[in-house]
């Protein structure tokens, strides 16, 4: 347990320090104000100012997922290409914990994305969003970020044995955004599709985010947070096991240092 926690805290701290020095980090933020402008224009054109929160939450969650996917894809590939993966594997640190910690660190990118979306909506359209339930909002940010990091940890395992999986990485975003109701509420989906979207932690996160911005009381906060935690934990467990299994396969085949 100490080893797992050590790997997690090391990865978290390391990623935060590394991101400050890396211009690549901020690429995930570029889309946030642009997406806000597009979505706000659509909402206002159709006379639905009541849906302004969607235009702010969507870019935040999209930045979160994009950053997670980007880092999950690059992290292990870069370590392998730069001769760091083998020394890491020869060390006592738990690689799945380290990767999860680093991806949690990468999730901090969502905070400036949210701020950018709010400021863009306010400055460009004069619509200033109020966070009516700040505690729920903070919890939603935490739970969604952790679940995102856990889910992309599972995806990172794939990149060890299949560097070509970057095609999947590039094409995975839009289906996830649509299915999770990031832009359109899941409640408006056909029943069969809504069921499928509820398997995605992001659909619960998107709803909770938006509810925290609305004046109406937020229902079943604990249950929704627990659901997200459970989905995130399942993804993390699957990801860690897959990572360990794939690493063992790479050790057996001698493919760790190949790129």
């Amino acid at each position, binding site marked *: 347990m100490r080893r797992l926690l050590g790997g997690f805290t*090391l990865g978290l701290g390391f990623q935060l320090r*590394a991101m400050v020095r890396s211009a690549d980090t901020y690429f995930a933020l570029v889309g946030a104000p642009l997406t806000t402008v597009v979505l706000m224009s659509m909402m206002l054109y159709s006379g639905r100012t009541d849906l302004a929160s969607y235009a702010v939450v969507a870019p935040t969650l999209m930045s979160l997922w994009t950053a997670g996917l980007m880092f999950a894809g690059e992290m292990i590939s870069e370590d392998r290409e730069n001769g760091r993966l083998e020394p890491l594997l020869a060390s006592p640190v738990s690689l799945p914990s380290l990767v999860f910690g680093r991806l949690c660190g990468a999730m901090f990118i969502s905070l400036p994305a949210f701020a950018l979306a709010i400021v863009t909506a306010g400055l460009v359209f004069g619509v200033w969003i109020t966070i009516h339930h700040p505690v729920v909002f903070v919890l939603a940010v935490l739970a969604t970020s952790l679940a995102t990091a856990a889910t992309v940890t599972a995806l990172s395992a794939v990149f060890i044995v299949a560097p070509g999986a970057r095609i999947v990485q590039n094409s995975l975003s839009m289906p996830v955004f649509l299915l999770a109701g990031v832009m359109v509420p899941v409640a408006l989906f056909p029943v069969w599709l809504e069921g499928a979207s509820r398997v995605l932690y992001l659909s619960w996160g998107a709803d909770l985010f938006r509810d925290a911005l609305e004046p109406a009381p937020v229902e079943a906060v604990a249950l929704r947070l627990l659901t997200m935690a459970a989905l995130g934990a399942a993804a993390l467990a699957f990801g860690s096991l897959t990572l360990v299994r794939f690493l063992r396969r790479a050790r057996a085949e001698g493919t760790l240092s190949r790129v």
Partner: protein
Amino acid sequence: MSALEITGLRRVYQRKRGDPLEALRGIDLVVPEGEVHGLLGPNGAGKTTLCKIVSTVLLPTSGTVRVLGHDVVTDTAGVKSSLGIVFGGDKGAYDRLTARQNLTFWASVYGITGTRRRRRVGELLERVGLAERAEEVVGGFSRGMKQRLHLARGLVSDPGVLILDEPTVGMDPVAARDFRALVGELRGGGTTILMTTHDMAEAAALSDRVSLIDQGRLVMTETPETVGDLVSAYERVDARGVPERVREQLAVLPGVVSVTGTGGGLTRVETEAPEATLAVQRALVDAEVRDVSLSRPTLEEVYLHLVGGRGMGVDP
């Protein structure tokens, strides 16, 4: 207890095309604690494969490897906590971080925290001569500086066994000299070192024992002094104006290893015993060849003889 016990170690790589590649073919080697052991061999001989198996990043096909009593397959945690590794080349650091941040990260990877980590990182930066550049990002470092940083990384956990895989490749002469001094210090401190190198002189200078590896097999394991005796057993005779008929006669004399032309009308005859050298000289004098000189081969040339004269070529 031995620091390193390798028994019947084999490693086979399955290839998508062609036959499987047998990189290690039954290696047996014991390295006692505190020994500096040089591992010499041409490219593709199996040196790096051996280092990777010892450091747990590659699984053996068969055989056993124990590091300070810990098995590399069944007790990886025990191996990892007692082993430091420095792979060759200038890759391996986080280029956007400073030297100090890099070492701090690796110290944390080995579970070293707080004041102990700060002190250890400072000591190592000082020891490898990077203290004055500690706050600079590694991306701007020269190849030699990066290799010194890798060496510091390998030492960060104060390991009982240190694996150095081609550690001085690309180092400038001053850095290489400092590195050798550092290995001398580590030997004094009781660290066991397994070092692969192409440089026989370096291996002979630093190692307590030297193993020659070729095509996945250990050719020999001896002290540098014994290897030196091998060198003295070999001699070579250089002569100018040797008729083809005489060259053919020399080639079949007992103890003659090779007869080659080296350009400019020079014939080089290599022998493996003093009697053979004498017989060659006599044959040349009888053939009225007057321009004759005698010399000893370098340590590297002896090594090339031992690995079958394939030189530094990569195995297919």
